């Protein structure tokens, strides 16, 4: 930890402050941010009439609305949400403590670090057929897939984050006679929290990706399965409706974690 704070972050904060601080410019930042999705929507509107392969946004949105009104979307949504949340939860509950151990314990680090760093490069999805043969097609195999996918970014980020904790602060902790638990909860984890949060956020994104890919491959229920069924039946408005829904959920979830991360960083 150096005396001065990170200059780019400072300038960014300053710039944001300037944008948001002055009353007449309050709308500037949100307005600038919303231009990108609006542009995407406009492109969609422009393309849809040209080709039969792209349904109109109105058709897709109407289909999505029907999905909620008639209820056909709920079983798939619930199934995917269950797999994502349960798998992500398992990923956090295993990846965080093991990452802490890996980062703070020299022996554990020397044994397992190369192993985990190496495994990090293996596409995790190849394990899905293995899980399918073990657990059969269903929520269990899918949740397992999500958990494995979320585990790696979380353990790697946590391990790196807790290892980079300021030596100075650890020295302070020892001189104040902090015990192991106090060192962990009052110094190491708070100091590493922003970097740990990055791993958790990435873990969440990957959880969602893993669930959808698994469902596209083999599942009994889920949004991914519904997308592939709609695709096979050439029900394009329905396919677009579900794609849109998945995008919105992933986007909102990530933004929530991202704002939490920013709050920890400030």
């Amino acid at each position, binding site marked *: 930890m150096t005396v001065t704070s990170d200059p780019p972050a400072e300038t960014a904060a300053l710039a944001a402050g300037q944008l948001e601080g002055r009353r007449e410019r309050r709308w500037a930042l949100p307005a600038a941010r919303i231009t990108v999705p609006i542009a995407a929507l406009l492109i969609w509107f422009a393309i849809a009439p040209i080709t039969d392969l792209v349904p109109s946004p109105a058709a897709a949105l109407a289909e999505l609305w029907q999905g909620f009104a008639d209820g056909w979307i709920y079983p798939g949504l619930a199934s995917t949400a269950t797999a994502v949340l349960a798998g992500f939860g398992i990923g956090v509950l295993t990846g965080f403590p093991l990452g802490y151990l890996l980062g703070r314990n020299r022996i554990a680090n020397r044994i397992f670090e190369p192993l985990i760093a190496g495994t990090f490069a293996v596409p995790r999805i190849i394990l899905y057929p293995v899980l399918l043969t073990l657990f059969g097609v269903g929520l269990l195999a899918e949740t397992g897939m999500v958990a494995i996918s979320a585990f790696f970014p979380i353990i790697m980020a946590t391990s790196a984050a807790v290892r980079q904790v300021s030596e100075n*602060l650890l020295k302070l902790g020892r001189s104040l*006679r902090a015990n192991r638990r106090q060192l962990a909860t009052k110094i190491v984890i708070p100091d590493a929290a922003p970097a740990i949060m990055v791993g958790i956020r990435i873990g969440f994104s990957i959880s969602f990706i893993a669930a959808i890919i698994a469902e596209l491959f083999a599942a009994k229920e889920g949004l991914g399965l519904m997308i592939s069924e709609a695709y096979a039946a050439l029900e394009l408005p329905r396919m677009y409706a579900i794609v849109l829904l998945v995008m919105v959920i992933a986007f909102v979830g990530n933004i929530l974690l991202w704002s939490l991360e920013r709050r920890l960083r400030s």
Partner: protein
Amino acid sequence: MTRSPSTFQSETHAATTRRPTAADEGRGVRFDGVQVVYPTSDGSIEAIREVSGAISDGRFVSLIGPSGCGKSTLLDVVGGLRRPAAGTVAINGEAVSGPRRDTAMVFQEDSTLHWRTVLSNVAFGLEIAGVPKKERETRAREIINLVGLSGFEDRHPRELSGGMKQRVAIARALLLDPRILLMDEPFGALDQQTRMFIGRELLRVWDETRKSVLFVTHDIQEAIYLSDEVWIMTARPAVIKAIVPVDLDRPRLPEIMSSPRFHELSTQVWELLRVESEKALNIRGELP
């Protein structure tokens, strides 16, 4: 703090330097043949060969020496963060075997907890010690006042200057009400003006609290201005080369730095230090 009447008498005679008396025996810090060896990948480095001496209760002692001579290492030994290879450090007659409640450290680099407010940073030591929140915050506010940070209780370190962050660290140490304050180049990262100012502030606070201080620095003026004694260390492997008593009146104001006596003392310390600095530079020059 209780002081024997004889101490006060000797003070009236010498006015400035308090000679250790019989009542002081065993109080304060005693170094007894302290040797420190660092393990390295190819063998070991002897950082400190032999340090013996005493800091009697309530004295302000500066430790000065060429860079890399083991000043901070010696401080870590007193703070219980490093074990000597031989010899002992005793505080009030008890050998130091680990961090103690009656010592508190201030480090050179920023050691504020960036996610906590000034108030919670200052109270941190008491929080670790298990003092209830209300009590520790009440006491923290008093110390914050003493170090001149009133009004900044709810600020975060990123909103403070380097000098203010060091005051937070000093306040945190003072709040533990240690008998011995161990300061490892606490103003090393500050600019000259801030250094002078915060040095004066430190003296003011020290005058009010009269803790023993062991102060590591490489700044001769700072050492003389602040201290009762300046201990000069040799280049590695370090021994105490000389102890220069500083017979300047207290309370001291920065103006004292332009007095003839101050210049004499500076010259004296510099003469002793120069040879060692040259040696340290030569040693470094020989390294591949």
